[in-house]
C-alpha cells in the first residue's frame, strides 16, 4: 500500500471517483491545468480531460451556484474553494440553496455536491488564510460538515462525501496536508510517511460519514477534536501523562453522539479543542451536547481550548494557535477540578 500524504490521498479520492463515475467532475479557481494552489487536483485535467477538471472565474458564489445546478441535473460536482476564508461570498448559495433544495422541493430536487476547502492556521497565512469557519456550517440544517485528520480518512471520507446524496462541506486541515502537526512548532516536522494512517489503498473505499474514531483510549478524560487539533490532542495527552481518551470526530454534523457519550460517561471529564474563535464556535455545541447527555457523569466543567476571539494575526502564529501548552493546561484544569 503506497504511503500518501493528505494531498495525495485527496487527489487519489478524486481520481478514483472521476474514473468510476462519469457524473463526477471537479472545478474551482486554479484547479484545472495547474492542479490547485495546494496541488490537490494535480494531473486530473490531463488524465480525465478539460471538462472534468477545470478552472473557474474567481466568483465563489458562482462556483457553488453552478454546482447546485449541476447537482440538480444529476451530476456530482466537487468544487474547491481555494481557502475557507473565501467561502463567505458563496455563503448564501450554500445556506439558502444547497442546504434547502431537498427540503423545500420535498425531495424533487437535490444538490449532491461536495465543497472542498482548506482551512485552519499554522502556515503563517495571516488572517485571511487561516480561518476555521466550521461553526458557520454546523448551524445550517441541511449541510453535512466533515473534517479529516489523516490521509487514510481524508480519502475515505472524501469518497463518502462525493457519494453522499446531501451537500457536504469538506474542510481540509491545510496544516497537516504534508505531515501530522502536533502543535510543537519548534520541533522538526514529521512527514506523513512515518505515520500508519498514510497507508492508503489505491482504489475505492469509504470512511463513513457520521462516525467518530477513538484514536487513543483512556479512562480519565475525554478529548474531543478534529482536523489538525487531533494531533495536538494526542501529543498533549502523551506529554501530560494523562490517561486521556482522544476522539477524532471526523464528521461534525451529524456528529457521532454515541461515541461522545460512551467516552464521557466513562471518564467524567471533557476537553474540547478547535482552532476557530471560541465564542459560538462548534465547541459550544459540543459542550451543550455533552452536558445535556452526560450531566450526571460530569466531575469537572467541560473545558474549551480554541482560537482567541480575534482575527488570526500574521506575526502571532504560535500565540494564536491553540498548541500543546494551552491544551495541557486545560487537561490539568479538568483533572484537578
Amino acid at each position, binding site marked *: 500500500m503506497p504511503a500518501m500524504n493528505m494531498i495525495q490521498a485527496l487527489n487519489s479520492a478524486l481520481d478514483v471517483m472521476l474514473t468510476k463515475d462519469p457524473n463526477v467532475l471537479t472545478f474551482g479557481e486554479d484547479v484545472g491545468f495547474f492542479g490547485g494552489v495546494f496541488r490537490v487536483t494535480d494531473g486530473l485535467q490531463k488524465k480525465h480531460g478539460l471538462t472534468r477538471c477545470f478552472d473557474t472565474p474567481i466568483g465563489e458564489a458562482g462556483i457553488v451556484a453552478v454546482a447546485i445546478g*449541476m447537482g440538480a*441535473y444529476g451530476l456530482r460536482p466537487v468544487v474547491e474553494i481555494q481557502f475557507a476564508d473565501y467561502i463567505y461570498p458563496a455563503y448564501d448559495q450554500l445556506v439558502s440553496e444547497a442546504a434547502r433544495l431537498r427540503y423545500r422541493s420535498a425531495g424533487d430536487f437535490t444538490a449532491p455536491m461536495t465543497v472542498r476547502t482548506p482551512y485552519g492556521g499554522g502556515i503563517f497565512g495571516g488572517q485571511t488564510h487561516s480561518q476555521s469557519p466550521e461553526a458557520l456550517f454546523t448551524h445550517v440544517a441541511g449541510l453535512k460538515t466533515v473534517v479529516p485528520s489523516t490521509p487514510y480518512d481524508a480519502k475515505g471520507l472524501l469518497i463518502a462525501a462525493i457519494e453522499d446524496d446531501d451537500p457536504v462541506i469538506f474542510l481540509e486541515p491545510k496544516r497537516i496536508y504534508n505531515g501530522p502537526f502536533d502543535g510543537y512548532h519548534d520541533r522538526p516536522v514529521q512527514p506523513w510517511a512515518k505515520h500508519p494512517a498514510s497507508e492508503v489503498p489505491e482504489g475505492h473505499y469509504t470512511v463513513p460519514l457520521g462516525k467518530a474514531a477513538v484514536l487513543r483510549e483512556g479512562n480519565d478524560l475525554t478529548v474531543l477534536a478534529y482536523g489538525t487539533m487531533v494531533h495536538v490532542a494526542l501529543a498533549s495527552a502523551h506529554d501530560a501523562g494523562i490517561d486521556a481518551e482522544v476522539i477524532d470526530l471526523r464528521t461534525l454534523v451529524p456528529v457521532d453522539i454515541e461515541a461522545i457519550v460512551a467516552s464521557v460517561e466513562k471518564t467524567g471529564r471533557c476537553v474540547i479543542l478547535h482552532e476557530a474563535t471560541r465564542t459560538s464556535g462548534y465547541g459550544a455545541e459540543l459542550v451543550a451536547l455533552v452536558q445535556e447527555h452526560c450531566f450526571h457523569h460530569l466531575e469537572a466543567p467541560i473545558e474549551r481550548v480554541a482560537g482567541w476571539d480575534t482575527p488570526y494575526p500574521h506575526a502571532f502564529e504560535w500565540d494564536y494557535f491553540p498548541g500543546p501548552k494551552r491544551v495541557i493546561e486545560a487537561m490539568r484544569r479538568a483533572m484537578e477540578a
Partner: protein
Amino acid sequence: MKNRRPLSLRVPAPETRPGDEPDFSGVPLSGAGEVARPAIDVRPRDISELSYALIRVLDDEGRALGSWNPKLDPAVMKHGLKSMLVTRAYDDRMYRAQRQGKTSFYMKSTGEEAVSVGAAAVLERDDMCFPSYRQQGLLISRGYPLKTMMCQVYSNAEDPLKGRQLPIMYSSKEFGFFTISGNLGTQFPQAVGWAMASAYKGDDRIAASWVGEGTTAEGDFHHACNFASVYRAPVILNVVNNQWAISSYQGIAGGDEATFASRAIGYGLPGLRVDGNDFLAVYAVTQWAAERARANLGATLIEHYTFRAEGHSTSDDPNRYRPADAWKSWPLGDPIARLKKHLIAIKAWSEAEHEAAEKDAVEQVRAANKEAEAAGTLGTHPPSVKTMFEDVFKEMPWHIRRQRQEAGV
C-alpha cells in the same frame, strides 16, 4: 487643482408619484417589425443596438410585422391566449383567497402573462425552467394541474411540497419547473450550472431562467452572465423589467443609465430587448435564443419590457408609491388584448370565442379551487406534522429524529 466645486449625491427618483398623472413618455416605442432579426450565429458585438431597441411584432392594429414574426400556427397562439386567460383568472382567484384568509400570501403576474406563456410555447418539456415567483404562466401553459398549484398555495395535505414553502413557490421536476427560492436571483447561476451539465453530458436540453429587473442588482446576476459567457452555457437568461421592485422603480436598479439588455454586452453575450406584452415577439426572441443555445452558441440575455399591473404581492399597496391605475395608460397595452386582436385580425378567433374562453378559464379555476379547498386551506388540513422533520437530509440523522420525538410526532 483645489478650489473645486462641491460634489453632491444623486439619488434617482421616478417621474411621477401618487397624485401625479402617470408619465410613460420615456417608454421606447420602436414600431412593430422595425427591428431586423439577425442570424443566430451572429457575433454578439455586432448586434449591440438590439439591447437598446425594442423588438416588437404586433402593431396597434393587431398585425404581425417584420422579420421577427414567428409566423405561428394559430393553434399555438390560441393555446398561448388560453393559457394567459387561465393565468389571469387563477391569479384573481388566488388573490381573493388570500383576502378571504384562506392563505397567507399571494403574488399575481397580471400584465406580464406573455413573458412566461410566450417562453413556454418555445421550450421543450424536458428543458428546465428556473423561474422567479412570477412565472406561474409556465406551469399553466405546460398543463400542470391547477388544483395542485392551489394545494401548494393553501399548504394543505395535498400540497406536493408538504406545506414547507410560502404560497406560489411551486416546484415540479416533472414539468421542468425548478423549485422557487425566496432568495432573489439565486436561481440564475444555478440555471447556468444546469445548462452546463447538459452540455457536459452531451445532452440536448437547455435551461431558462427569469429574474425581475430589480433582482439584476444581485451578485448572482453577474455570476450567471459571467459563467454563461465563459463556458458558453446553453441557457436563456430572462430579465423581466416590469418597471417596479416592490416600491422602487427601475431607476434604482440602474435602468435610467442603461437598458438591462445592455448588461449582456460586457460579457460578450447577445442582449435583446423585447416588448414583453407582445406574445409573438416574446416567442420569437425566445426561439432565437433557444436555437442559438441548441446550436452550441451559448447564452442569450433577454430583457422583457413590461409592467407590473398590480401590487408586488398581497402585502403591498402600490398606490402608496406610484400613480393610481398606472397600468391603464401603459403604452404597450395588455398582452391578452393584443394577442386576441391579432387572432381576430387573422380570422382565427372571434369575440364570441374569446368570451367563451374567458368563461372557460374562470370555470376551470373555479372547479379546481373547489377541489383544492376541499383538500384544505391554510391551517385547516395541513400535511402531517411529522413531515416537518423529513427531507432535511436524505436519511434522518439522530438529532432530528430526537427532535421529532420531542415534538411528539
